[in-house]
């Protein structure tokens, strides 16, 4: 396909699922109501480590409406699985506080809640260890980091280069655990019918979830169906299978009825993943003009005792800036905590906070403008792999952003601008995110009535995938988008990759375009007429994706922040936020802008508000609700804008696009932290930047 002359792609088409969403007709997972449904409410471990000795199931079974109560002692056995988090009720062991230890099923939600509340669980408690620290004796080197990057990387002799560098920045940064908190809590409605299982789940990947769940119940994948047409946000927390899905299916199987299970907001803090806290040491060595000679970036993170998730925190540092001497590493410690997972830009978001903060510190140390410093260190090729970039327009983003933001009038001196009782400062940071693409399948069908149906087990978790795939299909089929219906969110559709890694549009879009092209060929063979039963074609992009040229493919961006810091209270408010991105071709400027701004908003929230507070005594995340875990509100987001530079990159995919779902969160926190430094002279190296770090 050539996108030249395309009519719909690139236009600001309204979301095709808008009418369903604004009228309340869009049904999310928990809103499916099979006949004779029962309600399951899980019970979570009240200890951080130990064993479940007994659960007084008999007592609750006497209560009105209670149908079943399950724990390890009476639960059906699942097939063994490598995914230890999914082996729900398969062991007496408690690996973290909040792990599921039982489930109650009752006729009504109220009855199930009350029975779960009063279910007596006896534990044998053992001492726990939940505190992440760099000198933990259990720190180890994982075999690789997510998804399959080398754990460490080295080039040249960074120690020697640092020792002789004219200017050295050596700083340690910390980011807290953070929880995704999509607005729709995780939920599953499980129905067993004719030996098969259907689960209405809130998931980012119906195909992947099916492949994970089916073997647990000893079934081939085609006996399991995952349905998830609408997903109320995910941000990574709905990327992998979580134990509630298994628990719902187990419960439904046990009681012989459909079962609904909603994970509560509080429960989500233990059982649906989170971003690992990190401690990161960054060392930059440069000459007097700020030209880097050495970069080292070491990250320390946590995982659980039952499953390893190693975030790729320092991976972006491997290609951001030129320097002959380099080193990056990741170390992990297994603690008695829940297993972390992907959260929007896993790796890049915390990693770039550290690297970009250090770059700002270097700019100050060298007396070089922070925009100029980044321009000066822009590499020709990927500095570690030596691969050419498919396209790299970081410098254009920095320049364009500086122009729009009015950066050139900036006085670099910190702590000198006041508006009334507010200190004002500005900061900049780079953004980046890889342009991944993986194999997917899709089908396209010409209906006899002149309409077209495109099917793919993709997920629209709010990204606008349904809309953009409609645009792509319309152009590939050379029809207006009103005549195209795109079906997503169902594992019965052609197998597709998970909505993650900002690779949805690249992966699914390729499959949709190829399926539509194949259909056009079929139509041509039929003389352009659709035969009475309709006409279908399919595509599988495995070969195309496998055959793509080896290049360094990344999107880039530059974020500019202006903050005000109250001199009396230390309250920080972001007055302006501008992101300029280079992410290939923008396929829908309306939904793309929303994606960028949404990511930047989450980045602002990360910078100023978000922290999951670990309770060392009890081992759980203490602030486990939306009153205590602060997300940005409407009032926190003032003047925020996203823009992009033209980028023509033929080495990506048929659309020429790079993923845009995650890059918006990358660099935001560093830009804000640098702006806070510029405003106050105080460098905050541990997020979030709350008033207690600034008041005095």
């Amino acid at each position, binding site marked *: 396909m050539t996108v030249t002359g395309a009519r719909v792609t690139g236009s600001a088409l*309204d979301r095709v699922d808008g009418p369903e969403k604004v009228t309340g007709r869009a049904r999310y997972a928990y809103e499916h109501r099979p006949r004779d449904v029962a309600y399951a409410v899980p019970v979570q471990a009240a200890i951080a480590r130990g064993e479940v000795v007994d659960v007084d199931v008999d007592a609750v079974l006497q209560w009105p409406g209670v149908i079943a109560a399950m724990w390890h002692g009476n639960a059906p056995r699942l097939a063994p699985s490598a995914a230890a988090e999914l082996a729900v009720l398969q062991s007496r062991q408690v690996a973290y506080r909040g792990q599921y230890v039982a489930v109650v099923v009752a006729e009504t939600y109220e009855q199930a809640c009350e029975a779960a509340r009063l279910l007596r669980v006896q534990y044998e408690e053992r001492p726990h260890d939940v505190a992440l620290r760099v000198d933990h004796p259990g720190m180890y080197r994982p075999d690789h980091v997510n998804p399959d990057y080398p754990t460490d990387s080295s080039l040249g002799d960074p120690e020697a280069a640092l020792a002789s560098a004219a200017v050295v920045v050596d700083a340690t940064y910390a980011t807290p655990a953070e929880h995704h908190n999509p*607005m729709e*809590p995780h939920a599953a409605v499980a129905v067993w019918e004719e030996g098969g299982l259907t689960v209405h789940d809130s998931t980012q990947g119906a195909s992947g979830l099916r492949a994970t769940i089916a073997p647990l119940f000893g079934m081939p994948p085609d006996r399991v169906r995952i349905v998830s047409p609408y997903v*109320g*946000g995910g941000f990574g927390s709905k990327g992998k299978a979580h134990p509630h899905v298994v628990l719902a299916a187990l419960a439904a199987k046990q009681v012989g009825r459909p079962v609904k299970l909603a994970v509560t907001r509080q429960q989500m803090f233990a059982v649906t993943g989170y971003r690992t806290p990190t401690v990161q040491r960054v060392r930059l060595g440069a000459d007097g003009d700020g030209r880097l000679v050495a970069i080292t970036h070491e990250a320390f993170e946590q995982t659980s005792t039952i499953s390893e998730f190693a975030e790729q925190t320092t991976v972006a540092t491997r290609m951001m800036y030129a320097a002959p001497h380099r080193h990056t590493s990741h170390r992990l410690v297994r603690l008695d905590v829940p297993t972390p997972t992907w959260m929007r830009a896993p790796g890049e978001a915390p990693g770039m906070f550290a690297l970009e903060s250090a770059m700002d510190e270097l700019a100050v140390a060298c007396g070089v403008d922070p925009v100029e410093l980044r321009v000066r260190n822009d590499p020709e090729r990927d500095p570690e792999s030596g691969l050419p970039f498919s396209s790299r327009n970081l410098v254009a983003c920095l320049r364009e952003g500086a122009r729009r933001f009015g950066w050139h009038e900036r006085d670099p001196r910190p702590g000198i601008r006041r508006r009334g009782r507010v200190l004002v400062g500005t900061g900049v940071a780079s953004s980046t995110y890889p342009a991944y693409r993986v194999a997917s399948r899709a089908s396209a069908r010409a209906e006899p009535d002149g309409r077209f149906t495109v099917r793919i087990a993709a997920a629209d978790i*709010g990204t606008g995938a349904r809309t953009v795939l409609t645009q792509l299909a319309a152009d590939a089929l050379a029809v207006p988008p009103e005549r195209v219906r795109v079906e997503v969110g169902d594992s019965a559709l052609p197998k597709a990759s998970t909505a993650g890694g900002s690779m949805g549009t690249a992966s699914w879009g390729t499959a949709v375009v190829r399926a539509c092209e194949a259909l056009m060929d079929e139509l041509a063979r039929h003389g352009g007429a659709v035969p009475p039963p309709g006409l279908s074609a399919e595509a599988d992009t495995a070969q195309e994706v496998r055959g793509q040229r080896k290049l360094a493919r990344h999107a880039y961006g530059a974020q500019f922040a202006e903050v005000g810091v109250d001199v009396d209270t230390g309250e920080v408010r972001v007055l302006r936020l501008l992101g300029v991105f280079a992410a290939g071709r923008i396929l829908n400027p309306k939904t793309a802008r*929303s994606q960028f701004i949404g990511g930047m908003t989450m980045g602002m929230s990360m910078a100023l508000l978000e922290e999951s507070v670990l309770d060392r005594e009890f081992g759980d995340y203490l602030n486990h609700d*939306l009153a205590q875990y602060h997300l940005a509100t409407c009032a926190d*987001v003032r003047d925020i804008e996203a823009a992009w530079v033209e980028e023509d990159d033929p080495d990506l995919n048929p659309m020429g696009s790079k993923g845009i779902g995650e890059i918006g969160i990358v660099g935001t926190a560093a830009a804000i932290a640098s702006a806070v430094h510029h405003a106050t002279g105080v460098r905050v190296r541990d997020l979030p930047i709350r008033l207690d770090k600034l008041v005095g």
Partner: protein
Amino acid sequence: MNGEANTIRGDAAAPAPITSDLRLSVNKDVHPITVDTRETLLDTLRERLDLTGSKKGCDHGQCGACTVLVDGRRVKSCLTLTVTVDDREITTIEGLAGGDSPHPLQEAFIEYDAFQCGYCTPGQLCSAVGMLAEAQDGWPSAVSEGDGPVVLDEEEIRERMSGNLCRCGAYPNIVEAIRRVAP
């Protein structure tokens, strides 16, 4: 609400549910219904009346996704016990449109892309309708200055809509959509 501590007692046996027969008026339809006193309006709407447009985001009044209108005022249906509103008129997202034509806010939300995943959207819309009525009545907000009539500029809308969280970060578009519809 007497300030005394209430703690879990060692209940020997769970008492049976206590129910109440009501006539619930939702979107001008009257529903005769028997409810458990423990049912929240949100759960009654979603689980009993199949009005699933109102969303459960936190179940503790901390996110706003469950916002509905009770006698025209916006409230959190997750903190409202159904037994307490049998003599009220309830309006949900399903009742916002007038007949076949959408509410102007619904159209503006689509036009200005004021949502992404859509889960907070019904609550945002009901909240916006209630908020416009409050402003019309001259109610101030935390950012209002002076005693004059309310002028719904961006700052006012942002503050007044802060009880509705949106994790996708559609706030600027929500504000713009409301501003376009506000008088």
